[in-house]
């Protein structure tokens, strides 16, 4: 057994889930958490910009003019459910059930596509039908960039989950693939958290003010 590059004293890892059993997995998961903490600030800054700009509509459409509650609720429910299916995937991971894990990840990806489709449709209808593209006002710039950044994250998430599905199919659940599957799950749930705030601070607030 080789001495590892890491000097971490091997704590009792017998009872830890598979993804924590290698030192590398342990390091990467902490690193990823820290990355997510940094993403909190990234989205915080986007929220700050949007909220400052919310009333700067420059005579163009306002939040109240644009937002419709039905499609927004559909997007929200889809994303919440996808977070749930992703959570079930992590559960199957813990049970070492490769098939179950892959199945739930596939469902999650499908829901992710549905979300992106709805969002793209919403953007399209604002920009083209309602005369409200990104260049119309500061409010719309803030709106499109905040939501677009979230949407871009979800799209990247779809690519990432897909790549992990392939790796799981090739290799089954090992310490390495377990770590990857767990991390992509964290990412997906995190995007759900961001959406909760978008739902509240953008849509609901926009309809109230």
């Amino acid at each position, binding site marked *: 057994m080789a001495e*590892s590059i890491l*000097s971490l004293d091997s704590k009792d890892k017998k009872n830890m889930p598979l993804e924590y059993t290698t030192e590398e997995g342990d390091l990467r998961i902490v690193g990823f958490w820290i990355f997510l*903490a940094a993403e909190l600030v990234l989205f915080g800054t986007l929220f700050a910009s949007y909220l400052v700009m919310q009333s700067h509509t420059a005579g163009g459409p306002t939040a109240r003019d644009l937002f419709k509650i039905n499609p927004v609720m559909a997007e929200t429910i889809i994303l919440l459910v996808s977070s749930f299916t992703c959570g079930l995937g992590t559960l199957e991971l813990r049970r070492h059930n490769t098939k179950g894990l892959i199945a739930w990840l596939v469902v999650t990806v499908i829901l992710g596509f549905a979300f992106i489709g709805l969002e793209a449709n919403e953007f399209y209808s604002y920009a083209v039908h309602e005369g409200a593209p990104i260049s119309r006002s500061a409010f719309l710039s803030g709106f499109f960039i905040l939501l677009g950044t979230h949407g871009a994250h979800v799209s990247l998430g779809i690519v990432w989950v897909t790549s992990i599905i392939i790796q799981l199919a090739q290799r089954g659940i090992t310490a390495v693939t377990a770590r990857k599957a767990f991390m992509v799950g964290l990412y997906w749930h995190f995007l759900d958290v961001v959406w909760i705030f978008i739902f509240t601070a953008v849509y609901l607030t926009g309809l109230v003010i």
Partner: protein
Amino acid sequence: MQNITNFLSHFFVTGDPMIYGADASIALASIGIVVVLTYFKKWKWLWDEWLTSVDHKRIGIMYIIAALLMLFRGGVDALMMRTQLALPNMHFLNAEHYNQVFTTHGTIMIIFVAMPFIFGLMNIAVPLQIGARDVAFPFLNALSFWLFFFGAMLFNLSFVIGGSPDAGWSSYAPFAGAELNPGVGQNYYLIGVQISGIGSLATGINFLVTILKMRAPGMTLFKMPMFTWSILITSVIVIFAFPAFTVALALMTIDRLFGAHFFTIAAGGSPMLWANLFWFWGHPEVYIVLLPVFGIFSEVIATFAHKTLFGYVVMVWSMIAISFLSFITWLHHFFTMGNTAPVNAFFSISTMLIAIPTGVKIFNWLFTLNRGRIEFTTPMLWALAFIPNFTIGGVTGVMLAMAPADYQYHNSYFLVAHFHSTLIAGTVFGIFCGLHYWWPKMFGYLLNEKLGKWSFWVFMISFNICFMPMYFLGLMGMTRRMYTYPAGLGWGPINFIITIGAFGMGLGFIIMALNIVWSAIHGKKDTTGDPWDGRTLEWSTASPAPEYNFAHIPTVSTRDAFEAMKEEKREGRTKPQLPFKPIHMPNNSGIPFIMGGFMFVAGFGFVFEWFWMGIPGLLGVVACMIARSFVYNDHHHIPADEIERIERAAGRLS
């Protein structure tokens, strides 16, 4: 044909003899490098040993080389400005050029000198100080470096292709927006800095995890060397400050490229939002370039006073306090923006609060020196000079922190003097100090002390000749970013003295460069690995450290761990030699370099709004990420007998 010449004369910057000179020297230098590498058949060596390396020590060296080159460029910019200002009504630079030069000077000094130099030193020292074999994510570490490198190259390209940015290093809207600032210069700033900023964020995460998770057994947080502590706190600040900057830069890029209205005057945009977001990053950035050098000074002062650091715990807690406070003082950079009184009052108070933990440290160093057995080596001279010179910058900073008074000082030469007092007497003295201190660990020989002292005295005295008079010039009414001034205001003689000081600093830098060259040939070998009688673990391994850093991971029981080990040895308590075991090390990879290259291509495309080039560049980046995700075999073993061979060759086996 007409079209083509027209395009080319806009693509390449034309019409100025200085720029043709630069074109020629860049071309000659590039050809020279290619010829030398080809002649000596060094391409493969360069690729295998450096460009694909994931070894923190090599990455550190590459950071430092790049930062020194950038320091040269930033210094030439500074001397050009000082030449223009030496006398009233000079015609060396015109207004437009002066704007470009202070913009590139400021941006390069902060983003492409101070930060990478610090990243270089921490790459060299931190894993060694904590007894680790590398950082937590060696591949990511290489990627960070190449993102910084290609970001810096992109930014510098603006000088010869397309035109330099000219809106200041703070790039204030609305002047930096598309309407008032058409052309590509500002895009270079936004995208070049963005690319290297992504690398910085990754470095922050990497070092935070390294320090939290990879310390040698027994090294609890409060037994870590102070430099490592300073990097821990700096990493936290990097991690939480850079995302805000990423967003700010991206929003302005989107304004310029896609017609959004974040910072424009039209359609509801708010130029003040830019100032707000920029400084939300910008103030923490000040601590990012200061805390690490506080760490360096702490190490150097303790080493050459031959005492343990006074007030270790207080020092740690004051840095923790700074990490919180540094995120709630940003408004002091724009007290004069028309904020309400409660807002200005809050930020004025928080700014004065943050001065307290900073001031506390000065006393820690003084008490460490008190009754120490002080040895005046070159690194120690830089550290000692830092204390009074930096304190002047700190005191004038508190003067600026008083909002009503700042209405008077704001954007005058008083401010220019203040921030150079902190950035030069703090950051630059610190990186020079660290460079001399860790040089033997990096290369296995020492820099010459005599030349080192010459460069120190020349630089330090010139620094004072250059920047002390600026305070008075500011009080006499000269404002920042002025490209010339009329005679008869009484500013002429002072400006002339300042310029003399500036060239003196250039001379100091040249002596340092000479020292590097001279010592590379004649420098004293460091055969023990411990040339300074050091106190921390980096001195317990060979100089330069082997690839795996430590043949056996050390066990730590106190602060100043290596000092304690030497103490044990003096008392005759030696540990039995353990057998070597094979060591697991990460493989080199070309992906970080290639990914940086794609980023460069993408960045160049977006600078010119050539989406046919930008988008494929970005796809290349994503492809590299996916390719990396499918690499499973990324480690190798160094067998025990090879370790034994290396240790024996380094003279570390009895």
